[in-house]
């Protein structure tokens, strides 16, 4: 008798227009049947992630080199002439390398345009550097250092590391770095110092990322040792902090990311906004 009752009871349908003889808060076995979890997850491999974390470290190297250069100039170890000549030479070499890598046709027009831009920038920079130097001269040194710290942090946060996130704003990141350089430039003795520091900042934060993206060679070890050496000559505490930071970002963060993967809980279902299929 129980069997015939079951056969006569129809299967519950997920429709709203039929009175199926059950209460409104009835929960069928098929509840949440169409829910799918974790459809599009990627599995990460530790050393691959470590290699990719290199992108972040490269930008951090830039920041540390910049600060080390500032301190060297302040301690009169580095002369502005030397800095300007070295950075210009490296920039020109980098430009040629970029040119070669991109296999551009020898468009003399674009080279002429680039040359013009460089000329305009140098002239403007040189003529405005007295103003640049005195812009933040009246602010106390502690505030300057604090501002520089936050600006460089903003540079790191908003930099374009190659992902498509909403937080990325290349313009904001560059502006923050240049503002940091102007802050620091005001602490230097002469306008020549200021000009060379700001030019160096531009080359380091605006031009170097472009070349870096096209190079795709891991210069990490070379660059890392350059940074370590330059920072070590300024302060030994700083170099320890730098090495710990390096370890954290390159080894600990990838390990942490991989450890968190099993906790991923992406929910998909019929309530999702449909993606138009082509």
């Amino acid at each position, binding site marked *: 008798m129980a069997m015939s009752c079951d056969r006569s009871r129809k299967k519950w349908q*997920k*429709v*709203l*227009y039929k009175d199926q003889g059950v*209460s*409104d*808060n009835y*929960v069928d076995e098929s*509840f*949440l049947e*169409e*829910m799918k979890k974790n459809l599009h997850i990627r599995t990460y491999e530790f050393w691959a992630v470590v290699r990719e974390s290199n992108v972040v470290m490269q930008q951090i190297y830039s920041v540390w080199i910049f600060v080390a250069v500032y301190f060297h100039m302040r301690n009169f170890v580095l002369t502005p002439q030397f800095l300007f000549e070295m950075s210009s030479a490296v920039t020109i070499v980098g430009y040629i390398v970029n040119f070669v890598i991109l296999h551009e046709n020898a468009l003399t027009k674009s080279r002429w345009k680039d040359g013009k831009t460089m000329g305009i920038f140098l002239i403007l920079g040189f003529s405005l550097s007295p103003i640049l130097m005195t812009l933040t001269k009246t602010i106390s040194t502690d505030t300057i250092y604090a501002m520089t710290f936050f600006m460089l942090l903003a540079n790191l946060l908003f930099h374009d590391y190659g992902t498509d996130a909403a937080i990325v704003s290349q313009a904001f990141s560059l502006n923050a770095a240049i503002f940091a350089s102007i802050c620091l430039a005001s602490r230097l003795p002469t306008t020549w110092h200021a000009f060379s520091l700001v030019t160096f900042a531009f080359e380091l934060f605006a031009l170097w990322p472009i070349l870096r993206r096209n190079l795709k060679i891991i210069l990490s070890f070379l660059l890392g040792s350059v940074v370590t050496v330059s920072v070590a000559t300024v302060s030994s505490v700083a170099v320890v902090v730098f090495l710990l930071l390096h370890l954290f970002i390159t080894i600990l963060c990838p390990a942490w990311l991989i450890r968190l993967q099993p906790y991923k809980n*992406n*929910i998909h*279902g*019929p*309530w*999702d*906004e*449909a*993606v*138009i*299929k*082509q």
Partner: protein
Amino acid sequence: MKHSICMVSDFFYPNIGGVESHIYQLSQCLIERGHKVIVVTHAYGNRSGIRYLSNGLKVYYLPIQPVYNQCILPTVFTTLPVIRNILLRESINIVHGHSAFSALALESIFHARTMNVKAVFTDHSLFGFADLSSILTNKILKFSLAGVNHAICVSHTCKENTVLRGKIDPSDVSVIPNAVDASVFTPTSTERDPEKITIVVMSRLVYRKGADLLASVIPEICSRHSDVQFIIGGDGPKRLAIEEVREHFQLHDRIRLLGTVGHSAVRQVLVRGDIFLNTSLTEAFCIAIVEAASCGLQVVSTSVGGIPEVLPPDMIQLAEPSATSLVESLDKAIAKRRNCQLLSPDGAHDWVRKTYTWQNVAERTEIVYDKISAATEVTLADRLHRYNKCGLVAGKIFIFIAALNYLLLILCNWISPVQNIDLAIDCRKLRRLKTGGVNLEQSS
């Protein structure tokens, strides 16, 4: 058992929309069934204070202006005194909040639970989980639903979505669909062009409503069938895309863009069509297709959200959210129309009239009210426990907010004691007086 119900939402008349008409129609039907219903909403421009709508529906337009997206600024605590006053004055025993977007509704439910008044929440929309705004909104929803006695969703998909978002027990959620006033949406054969097959589209022209799909479907259909014409009501940022399609394919005589169509004029546009096309990318219920079916049109729609649950297969052609699938379904519908295989307009209208009625919605809502009225009271400690389950850090914050609200309630009770608050006149008694039933002395 007759209840005193307070409907709360940021969305009410004079705004016109799905949630607004839902609240109004449901309130009217509940009043018909003998309950007392009031509505609480924010001020609309100069419209502030107490107004009466038909059948003695009292509306409190609180003197708070909306700030963003037609909602008030969520302050959590500043609405406590005024909501407490209203609930005491009107002797409310059930607060019914509508729409997860409405800050006023969520806050009122919170205050109602602090005062140990039963609360129900109706969710009208679907939400995602993955982006930042969804994560925050879902947390707030968890907070609200942790206190609520019962929840109502407009479709089964909406119920699944709400249960996942709010982490509540599915047997605490009832599915009560929306309804349509079928007497307004009646079919007529005189408006239709017998030579052509008219496809009507009535939606805002935005990405969410699939305006891009519409733009890619129109030229394909127009090239396959020479006797098809489109009437598109509604406006929005994607209107330009439709106009570009019209320009590019030279379809000026086959596509008519009407712009924004007022709510009272919708039926006039619908009865000119044979087929109603809906290309939304997400819908909890989609009242538009029921309105179209009530006017006798065959519906072709994308199969998203709660749409597959709304109409039976002979009244709707479902398609995947892609241009090719929509074109296929439209072809089928057009072929059926040509061969006169479609359900007759009057048949469709009768079906909608019998199936989706506001009286049915009110009856089922009353069952929910009866159930929660009979349920035992939840102590403050139990409530705080439930809030604590909302998350490791969030749970503690919610407990703090709930406890603070309770203390503020005690303060309000001390400043303005319950005995000193005058009770408002019950409109039901006034109505009985008007119909000559009761002696004046007995009406107290």
